[in-house]
C-alpha cells in the first residue's frame, strides 16, 4: 500500500538551517547537509529545502548545497525559494534536486506551472500554497504569508492541478508555528478538490496531530520543521506511533 509520507522541512539562509515561528525570529538549527543525512537515516520519506533569502548572490551557495545534499542522501528531496524561471529550475534539477517548489512566482505567472510541467514533467513540479483565513474565506497569500492575493485557495488548488502541478504543498498561515495542529478541514477540502498529492504543513506539535492530518485531513504527506530540528518529536518514534494507529508507513 502507498504510505503516507513524513517530510522534515529545512529552511535555508546563507547555507544554514533556520526555522522561525510564523516566519519571523529565525533560529539556527544546524548544517543542512548533516541534518539531511540524519533525517534520511532516521527514516524521513523525503526532504524539503526552502531557501528563504534567495538573492542572486546566494543562488550559487544554494546550488552548491543542493549538489552536496544530492551526493549524500538516497531519498527524494525538493528545493524551493526564489524560483521564477525555467532556467532556475533547470539549474536546481541539474544540481540533483528531484523536485522544485514554486510559490509567489506561480501566483504572479501561473503559466510558469504549465511551462515547467511541459519541460521537466509534472512529477518534479510542487506548487506551494500559503493560505490564511480572511473574512470567512481561505485566501492565498505570498511573501511568507504577509501579502494577500485575489486567489481563493480551493479554486487555486484545482487550477494548479489543471496546469500540471505534480503536488501541492499547503501551508496554513493560521496554524503555522502554533504547534496546535494542522488545518484539518482545509487540508481535507484541498485533498478532495485536487487529484494530486497534498503535503500538509503548519501547526504540527504532537504525534497525534500527524494522525489527524492523515485521517481527518486526508493529507498524503505531513511536513514539519522545528519539532524535528529540536528533537521534540523523533522520526522513528513518530512513524512507529502512526503505524500503531493503522496508518501505512515505511519503516
Amino acid at each position, binding site marked *: *500500500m502507498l504510505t503516507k509520507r513524513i517530510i522534515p522541512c529545512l529552511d535555508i539562509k546563507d547555507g544554514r538551517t533556520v526555522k522561525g515561528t510564523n516566519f519571523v525570529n529565525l533560529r539556527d538549527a544546524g548544517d543542512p547537509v548533516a541534518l539531511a543525512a540524519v533525517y534520511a537515516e532516521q527514516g524521513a520519506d523525503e526532504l524539503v529545502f526552502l531557501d528563504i533569502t534567495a538573492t542572486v548572490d546566494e543562488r550559487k551557495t544554494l546550488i552548491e548545497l543542493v549538489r552536496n545534499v544530492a551526493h549524500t542522501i538516497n*531519498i527524494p528531496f525538493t528545493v524551493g525559494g526564489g524560483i521564477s524561471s525555467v532556467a532556475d529550475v533547470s539549474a536546481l534539477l541539474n544540481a*540533483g534536486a528531484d523536485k522544485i517548489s514554486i510559490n509567489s512566482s506561480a501566483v504572479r505567472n501561473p503559466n510558469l506551472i504549465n511551462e515547467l510541467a511541459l519541460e521537466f514533467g509534472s512529477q*518534479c513540479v510542487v506548487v506551494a500554497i500559503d493560505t490564511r483565513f480572511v473574512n470567512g474565506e481561505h485566501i492565498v497569500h505570498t511573501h511568507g504569508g504577509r501579502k494577500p492575493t485575489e486567489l481563493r485557495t480551493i479554486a487555486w488548488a484545482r487550477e494548479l492541478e489543471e496546469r500540471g502541478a505534480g503536488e501541492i504543498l499547503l501551508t496554513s498561515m493560521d496554524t503555522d508555528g502554533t504547534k496546535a495542529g494542522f488545518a484539518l478541514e482545509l487540508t481535507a477540502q484541498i485533498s478532495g478538490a485536487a487529484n494530486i498529492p497534498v503535503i500538509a504543513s503548519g501547526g504540527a506539535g504532537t504525534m497525534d496531530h500527524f494522525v489527524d492530518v492523515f485521517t481527518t485531513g486526508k493529507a498524503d504527506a505531513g511536513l514539519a520543521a522545528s519539532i524535528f530540528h529540536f528533537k521534540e518529536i523523533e522520526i522513528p518514534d513518530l512513524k512507529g506511533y502512526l503505524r500503531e494507529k493503522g496508518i501505512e508507513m515505511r519503516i
Partner: protein
Amino acid sequence: MKTVIIKYNAGNVQSVMYALDRLGASYLLTDDEAEIRSADKVIFPGVGEASTAMAYLRERGLDKLIPSLKQPVLGTCVGMQLMCRYSEENNTTCMGIFDIDVRRFPNEAGLKVPHTGWNNIHTLRGPLTEGLNDNSYVYFVHSYAADVCPETTAICDYVRPFSAMLHRDNFYAAQFHAEISGNVGQRILENFLTL
C-alpha cells in the same frame, strides 16, 4: 567495469549519476553507439513523456540499438515503459523488449494519479532483489504502468496490481526510482552492477 548511462531527452539523470557515485561506481553518460556497445552494464533511465522520448530514440537509432544489446541493461521509470510493447501515453509504439503494454491508472476515488510516494513491492524474484525482504518500500512517481505478466519479477499494488520490475534475458527494468529509494534502491543498483 564500464557502466554507461544512455543519454537522451528524457529528463533529469543527475540523481542516477549521484546514486552511482555513492556506490563508488564510475560511469559514462553518452548516446554514442560504440561506447554503449562496449559497456559492461547499461542503464537506461527516463523521466518524461513516452512519445517524445520514443521519437528521440528513433531519430538516433537508439530504438534499434537498445534491444540488440547483449550485456545487462537496466531501464528505470519511463525507460522501463519504453522497453515494453506499447504505451497508452499518446498512443506510443515502444521497443517491445518486454511482451506487455503500459496503461494509464484509471481515476478512482481516493487514489490519486500520479502514483506518488513509497509503496511496497512483493512476489520478488530474480537477481536484482536478492537480499531484500518481501514488501520492501521503494519510491514511485508515475501515471502509467505495465500490467503483471510472465516477465514480472516484482509486483506493486496501486488501483490494480502492476509490474514494479521486469526481467527477460539480459534486460531488467524497474518502474520505481531505485536511485532515490533509500537503502533498498541502493541494494537493487548494487545487485545490478555486480551481475
